[in-house]
């Protein structure tokens, strides 16, 4: 009788161990996947920016500085030697694009340029997807870290070398920036 109880306890412990380990692996993969999502969107932004600048520069003669600055941050981000430099360049790029989109509002002729409008929509959704991907990444990190740091999973996490992940920190000027929403806003009475 006593031996059965011991066997039962061992089986339950083994089941729990398997379950806890697998869920830790899933969460870690989910964090990695979320990070890659950010990367995908940043790359897409790099690809789109030259096209947008090409499309609008004919209209925006007086905004040469802003355009040049956007291109310059983009090139720095693409060629960044380290993660830190790259992050900084990407943040400048976000700010620069925000300014550029705001300035585009001053050029009503742009609204009738289909190509420019399409590119703007693509970049707008990319900007939003970067923001949402970062948010999703932080959600995933929170989930993983909560699991790693709470009992009893923390024992397993310790033993198998799971480490808490770092949150993505938005730069101070980025936090003040509203989400981009410029194109196609419908006028309304209220």
């Amino acid at each position: 009788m006593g031996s059965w109880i011991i066997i039962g306890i061992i089986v339950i412990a083994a089941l729990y161990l398997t379950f806890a380990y697998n869920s830790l692996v899933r969460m870690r993969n989910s964090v990695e996947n979320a990070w890659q999502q950010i990367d995908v969107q940043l790359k897409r932004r790099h690809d789109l920016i030259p096209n947008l600048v090409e499309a609008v520069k004919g209209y925006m003669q007086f905004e040469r500085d802003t355009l040049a600055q956007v291109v310059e941050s983009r090139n720095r981000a693409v060629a960044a030697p380290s993660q830190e430099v790259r992050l900084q360049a990407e943040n400048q790029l976000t700010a620069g694009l925000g300014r550029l989109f705001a300035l585009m509002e001053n050029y009503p002729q742009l609204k009738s340029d289909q190509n420019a409008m399409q590119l703007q929509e693509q970049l707008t959704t990319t900007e939003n997807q970067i923001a949402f991907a970062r948010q999703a990444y932080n959600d995933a990190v929170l989930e993983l870290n909560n699991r790693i740091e709470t009992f009893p999973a923390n024992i397993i996490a310790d033993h198998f070398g799971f480490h808490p992940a770092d949150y993505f920190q938005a730069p101070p000027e980025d936090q003040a920036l509203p989400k981009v929403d410029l194109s196609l806003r419908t006028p309304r009475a209220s």
Partner: protein
Amino acid sequence: MTPSHADFRDLERRNRRQTVALVVVFLLLFCALGLGLDFVVGAVRFQDGHLAGFPLLTIIALIVGSVQSLVSYYGGAALVLGSTHARQLAPDSPKHQMVLDVVQEMALASRMPVPRAYIIDEPAPNAFATGRDPQHSVICVTQGLVDEMDREELQGVLGHEMAHIRDYDIRTMMMIAVLAGGVAMLADFFMRWSFFGGFRTRDDRDNNDRGQARVIIAIAVFVLAILAPIFSQLIAIAVSRQREYLADASSVEFTRNPRALLRALEQIARTESPLANASRGTAHLFIVNPLEGAGDDGEGFFDSLLSTHPPLSRRIQRLRELMAEPADSAI
């Protein structure tokens, strides 16, 4: 905005349980019906306190019920989309492209796979999500929603739908829609059949036997035809209402922007026209009740008892509380 984040896995589990319970009840209903018919045609009878005979119709009913459950599970989304006359959304205009983009944005924010997008050509702004799981999910919007919402408002509405997808509400709701439709069809079928005298058995030996059979048929038909649709409607009501509040809260969790969803709901509250292609069977799928115009958004006791959706005004008020903004600013 803490409420629904940590416990969405609980919601998912609850939905799995409810779907299983739903199918079991549905199958039991079919079995009871088949057994009743077996008695009526004399395939099964009481003999010395035992059941005797071969319950052929019960087995057939069980098979039909199982097939229909499988069809609802795998084909429910297609059935729902067909009954609402939805078509696949193509990037054929800037606004449609934007909807497709926002669907992707909200899928990212909710960490879910990107659902397929559909559209209904109707002016009433509304939306729903359906499918059997997040990997096979569909989001459907009306042309009216596309026309009237700006990007942020769309994010709010589609975030609400992504919450239904993440919590597996879509599966439960879809099964209710299709199975309830099946029950209604069955009830209809029996009504007609009994009207046209389909129950007449070949060897009507005496009137007494036939009279008994008639009574049983009458009871079966009465139960099915009158109680079943009401019953499935009650299930839809009970299951759907609390989920709308939860999905509103989750939407805000995704967009971090309660104001946009608030604006969207207010905008929808102002529109008059109900949705022509929605029916009682699919009403509970939509973000706002598609059967009533803005004027009918009652808050009376019976309104709140018998509607699949909580009153819009109350949802708007909850969002305001979420924003900690005074509720007196004009709608």
